[in-house]
């Protein structure tokens, strides 16, 4: 190397690394959770309304998610096709009007072909969608796509709507793993952080099974991540904040018996998480959902068995996860009608601004079921 080239290259190293240090200084500092909102006025009359969504155009459906719209309606998403993992699987949507207690006809918002064209890469199948809102109030839809292999080959994509889900911008691929960016999936609700970034619960299924919290900026790029667990037995985290700094996360368990829902906690806004502990609630290696009701208890929707998904229950915790009691059964042997295939799974739970609680779940693998209820029903009134 000539002396001139040598010193020129050293000067280039100095310049480039100065820029790297400046960029590292700009990395987003730790942010806090946005504290849950104040309590909504409670209705004394028990409310309980179950109904199946009008999703008859596909034989197989799964993994429902939803977000409340600005006009108080609810927009749900799920994936459907001839079977899970088929090339014709698309992401569908429908809107629920609380006044009419009715869902609109379904329509597809993302197909495999459209994803392939927009992402400029081969896409073999689509999977779990997850809805949320960014700091600008725009509706966000994260969804899983696979280019090679099974679900362990998944990557997460994000698309954003400026008009409450009527139309969508092109999807963007999130990069969250150094290994071909495979094996990152979503199931839990994204949370808005105090600095406007989103905390997206994600999980990995390739070699290990563990959860992470991805930090996604306003342009839909992963700008940080925190590990929630590690190893081979925990997945599908659902994070429930109680204050700006305190939260718990519930996880599906895929390890040795006894099969229980896993729980972890943070007291420093997600910078550090405790080791997973088994709760008293069973878990047949199935997704769970949880929400902290405004001014009230923590509610979980879960399969109340260790071996099957033939029943779906609601559990309440008034001490933020220290103890639980099963409050209601949404599905089970004694409850009619039963699905042709008695599997009730992948619950999604949320509370709307009026205080009503919505649960969406896969009903017999062929339909999405919606149940809306209030605290009066949950805590003992009515059916």
């Amino acid at each position, binding site marked *: 190397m000539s002396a001139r080239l*040598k010193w020129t290259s050293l000067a280039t190293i100095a310049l480039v690394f100065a820029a790297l240090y400046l960029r590292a200084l700009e990395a987003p500092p730790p942010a806090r959770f946005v504290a849950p909102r104040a309590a909504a006025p409670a209705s004394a009359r028990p409310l309980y309304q179950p109904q199946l969504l009008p999703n008859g155009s596909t034989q197989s459906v799964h993994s429902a998610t939803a977000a409340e719209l600005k006009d108080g309606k609810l927009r749900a998403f799920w994936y459907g096709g001839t079977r899970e993992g088929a090339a014709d699987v698309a992401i569908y949507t429908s809107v629920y009007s609380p006044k009419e207690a009715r869902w609109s006809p379904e329509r597809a918002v993302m197909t495999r072909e459209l994803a392939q064209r927009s992402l400029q890469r081969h896409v073999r199948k689509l999977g779990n969608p997850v809805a949320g809102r960014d700091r600008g109030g725009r509706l966000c839809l994260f969804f899983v796509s696979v280019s*090679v292999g099974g679900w362990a080959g998944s990557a997460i994509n994000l698309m954003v709507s400026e008009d409450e889900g009527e139309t969508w911008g092109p999807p963007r691929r999130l*990069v969250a793993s150094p290994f071909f960016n495979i094996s990152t999936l979503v199931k839990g609700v994204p949370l808005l952080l105090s600095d406007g970034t989103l905390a997206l619960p994600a999980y990995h299924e390739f*070699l290990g099974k563990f959860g992470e919290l991805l930090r996604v900026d306003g342009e839909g790029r992963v700008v940080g991540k925190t590990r929630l667990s590690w190893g081979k037995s925990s997945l599908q985290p659902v994070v429930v904040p109680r204050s700006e700094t305190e939260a718990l996360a519930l996880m599906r368990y895929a390890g040795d018996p006894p099969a229980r829902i896993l729980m972890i906690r943070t007291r420093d806004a997600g910078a550090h998480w405790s080791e997973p502990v088994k709760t008293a609630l069973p878990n047949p290696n199935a997704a769970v959902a949880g929400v902290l009701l405004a001014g009230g208890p923590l509610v979980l929707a879960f399969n109340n068995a260790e071996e099957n998904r033939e029943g779906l229950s609601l559990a309440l915790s008034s001490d933020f996860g220290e103890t639980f009691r099963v409050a209601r059964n949404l599905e089970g042997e004694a409850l009619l009608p039963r699905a042709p295939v008695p599997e009730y799974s992948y619950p999604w739970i949320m509370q709307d601004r009026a205080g009503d609680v919505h649960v969406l779940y896969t009903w017999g693998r062929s339909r999405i079921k919606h149940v809306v209820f209030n605290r009066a029903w949950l805590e003992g009134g009515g059916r």
Partner: protein
Amino acid sequence: MTNLVGLLGCGLLCLALAASVLRLQAFPAQARYVVELAVALAVFVPIGDLSIAGTVRGATGDLSAPTLALAASALFSRLTGRTLFERREVDALLGLVAGAALFLYPFALGWTAFDPYALGYGSMAFVTALLLATLLAWWAGLKLVVFVVLAGALAWLGGVYESRNLWDTLIDPLAAGYALAVLLMKGGKKLISQRRERAAVV
């Protein structure tokens, strides 16, 4: 922009692989360029919705600076019959990539609670470690290592990758797998020759 860079990178890899598989160096000089031009058309022109480069990108994601440098080097050699980088420089790069791979992948795939991949979002410690490695390479006259690190860093700063993680511009599983395979083969050969020498002495 990220789509364009990603597709060009995967296309370059396809061109280098095609040049190796077709044994391009056996062709007359001018024919090599004609063949590679034809391969480039096949790789980049979409068939239906997607080009071959797009199909490869679906499986590999965006390729890191070492993979692109090695692919460019292989393509250059097959086209011109000359080498772009000295063997010593390539070996140093492969050694660095293999070491980084052994540090990164087992932990990033959930082996323990420690996740080195998270350092790639702007950790001062990571940037400092990279600076030290780059200065060592500069001091040892390893131009290729210095070039690859600077190219990866500039790509990260310029935001031309889908990923905002510095690791993704510096390493990918293709470069890691190639580096580990080459080093294992070299180690194996060395071991065998040492045993033969000992046997001859006995």
